[in-house]
């Protein structure tokens, strides 16, 4: 284990603890958000994005490189048809099952064994995406 992997593990622990604390790991709570019965979930993504906004936009003004080396690079992707078509397909899956990738992985830690089915299916979906990629 190098320093990078240990740091990622520790950051992941905060991430997973936060997801479980917020209820994101419970598909029923996610679905009640998407059915507009409980709008609290907007604060999960909002709160996380706000904190991360400072890390991505403010911290690099005072720190030339990341503490363990490497480079600061904001996450930008080019807009393409695939980004939007993919988002539509993802939206159907999220709305149908209440699972998204991070929350499904974290959900395992809450004892939610049923979500293994969803995670297995996500791997199959990612595999099918690879089959369709002509590159």
């Amino acid at each position, binding site marked *: 284990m190098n320093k990078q992997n240990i740091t990622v593990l520790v950051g992941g622990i905060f991430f997973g603890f936060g997801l479980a604390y917020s209820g994101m790991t419970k598909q029923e709570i996610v679905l009640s958000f998407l059915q507009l019965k409980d709008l609290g979930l907007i604060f999960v993504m909002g709160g996380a994005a706000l904190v991360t906004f400072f890390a991505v936009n403010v911290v690099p003004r005072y720190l030339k490189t990341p503490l363990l080396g490497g480079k600061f690079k904001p996450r930008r992707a080019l807009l393409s048809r695939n980004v939007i078509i*993919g988002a539509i397909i993802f939206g159907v899956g999220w709305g149908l099952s209440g699972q998204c990738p991070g929350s499904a992985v974290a959900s395992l830690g809450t004892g939610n064994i049923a979500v293994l089915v969803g995670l297995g299916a996500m791997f199959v979906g990612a595999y099918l995406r690879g089959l369709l990629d002509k590159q």
Partner: protein
Amino acid sequence: MFPLGIEPYLVGGILAGIGVSLIYIATGLHATQSSFFTTTLSWFLKRKHFQKESNIEERTWRLFLATGLVIGALLYTLTLSPTGFWNTSVQIWRLALGGLLVGFGTRLSQGCTSGHGISGLASLSTTSLYAVIVFMGVAIATANIIQLIGVSP
């Protein structure tokens, strides 16, 4: 609008953001989730899509990230959780079909709730903003249609 209050959501979101920020400040990596499926498959599949250099580079730390998520949620369940271990009652076919679409869609879109929703928005990416608006809108519509036709849980 907020039957459970906003405290758990806001605190949980901030904790998740601290995790993502810690990783970014220390390593410059974006702790996003959906790439994990593709990079993990690169251990088993020869196809070029999976064998891209970036997948090989990222696959180890992404496994650590996923492990961290599970440990973090486990720690919460063992300490602060009012309900302890828990299992969803959402029907298996919904988890399976939904998961399939989530896996395919997030990889085609190159981001999910964390990639576009946290790291992308925090990076002020307009691409991610469009993606978030689309997947949120479609998910809200889908969840309501499912409820309307009487599928529960």
